């Protein structure tokens, strides 16, 4: 450890201690744990089901009441993935002819079975997000995970069928664009941006929430595609160059 690093460590400890103390002092003015009085949350809990026909209040907030935040958040993921592609552009070595067969039959069998299961779980979570815990983000991440399982269970070449930017970019772009397009459609129809233009459906079923369902699926598609692009980038920048060394 150089002297500079040592000095930094010695100064950092009391400084962070003081920062923690100030934070703690500020928090001591907050309501006690378990005694939160927020009217905003209560109002939404009370009105989300009758107004939005969605029994999962959190999803109703994410895709409707505060749906504009979600649009921004979706684009943060979008921009970051584009950024990672930009940053790793010189390091990637996608090689469709390189193979990395998985040796163990047990892993292959188990993996192939699990891909289907995990995919269904992901889709189910996304579909029922308006009814029970879940939603587009959660479902999208799990669907991406299911497809990474293909790499783990079956090797690099089968993975390449899915893990290609030319395949994933359109999904990512269309997912992101459709969210904004739904908002603009409301605007064109004379309503505020992201206003719910469709019927509300029956709460507690798959067909509930109106435009929330569409937004939910747009996000699921975008998140799954974006995550897969991320995995592709890191795989091809870091793992694939070393595949032959195994």
């Amino acid at each position, binding site marked *: 450890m*150089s002297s500079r690093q040592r000095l930094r460590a010695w100064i950092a400890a009391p400084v962070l201690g003081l920062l923690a103390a100030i934070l703690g002092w500020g928090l001591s003015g907050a309501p006690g744990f378990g005694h*939160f009085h927020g009217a905003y949350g209560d109002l939404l809990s009370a009105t989300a089901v009758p107004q939005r026909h969605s029994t999962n209040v959190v999803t109703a907030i994410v895709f409707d009441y505060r749906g504009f935040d979600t649009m921004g*958040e979706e684009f943060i993921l979008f921009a970051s993935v584009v950024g990672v592609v930009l940053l790793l552009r010189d390091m990637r070595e996608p090689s469709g002819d390189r193979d990395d067969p998985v040796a163990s039959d047990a892993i292959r069998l188990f993996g192939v079975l699990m891909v289907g299961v995990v995919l269904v779980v992901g889709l189910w979570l996304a579909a029922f997000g308006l009814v029970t815990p879940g939603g587009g983000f959660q479902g999208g991440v799990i669907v991406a995970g299911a497809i990474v399982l293909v790499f783990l269970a079956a090797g690099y070449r089968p993975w390449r069928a899915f893990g290609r930017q030319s395949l994933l970019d359109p999904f990512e772009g269309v997912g992101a664009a459709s969210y904004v397009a739904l908002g603009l459609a409301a605007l064109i129809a004379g309503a505020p941006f992201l206003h719910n233009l469709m019927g509300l459906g029956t709460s507690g079923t798959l067909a509930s929430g109106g435009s929330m369902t569409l937004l939910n699926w747009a996000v699921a598609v975008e998140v799954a595609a974006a995550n897969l692009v991320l995995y592709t980038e890191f795989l091809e920048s870091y793992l694939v160059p070393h595949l032959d060394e195994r």
Partner: protein
Amino acid sequence: MTLLAYGVAVWVFAIGIYGAIVSRNLIHLALCLTVTQSSTYILLLTVGYRHGAGAPIFEDVKLGTAAVDPVVQSLTLTDVVVSVTVIALILALALDVHRQSGSVDPDEISTLNG
């Protein structure tokens, strides 16, 4: 209980930043930032908790039953997505640094100064 709940958030926040300051490896630094971000989730969710209340899901539950605050949960969801994306970028930068210089020590890669 209040002390414990808020204290955990504050501790995790401080220790994450401390780790980032003294870090000698960019990957470790990115993960320290993840730790710091977790403290914001802890704080948000702790703030919204209510004793004896259930989840804000009303599928089989009568409307009007006490529920914890759903707004902080949506904020945390957004927060998680944001953190994943930023850390992915920092890790990609770390990979690039390693390729250019062979090192991931922040003190060793310093060419910009003054």
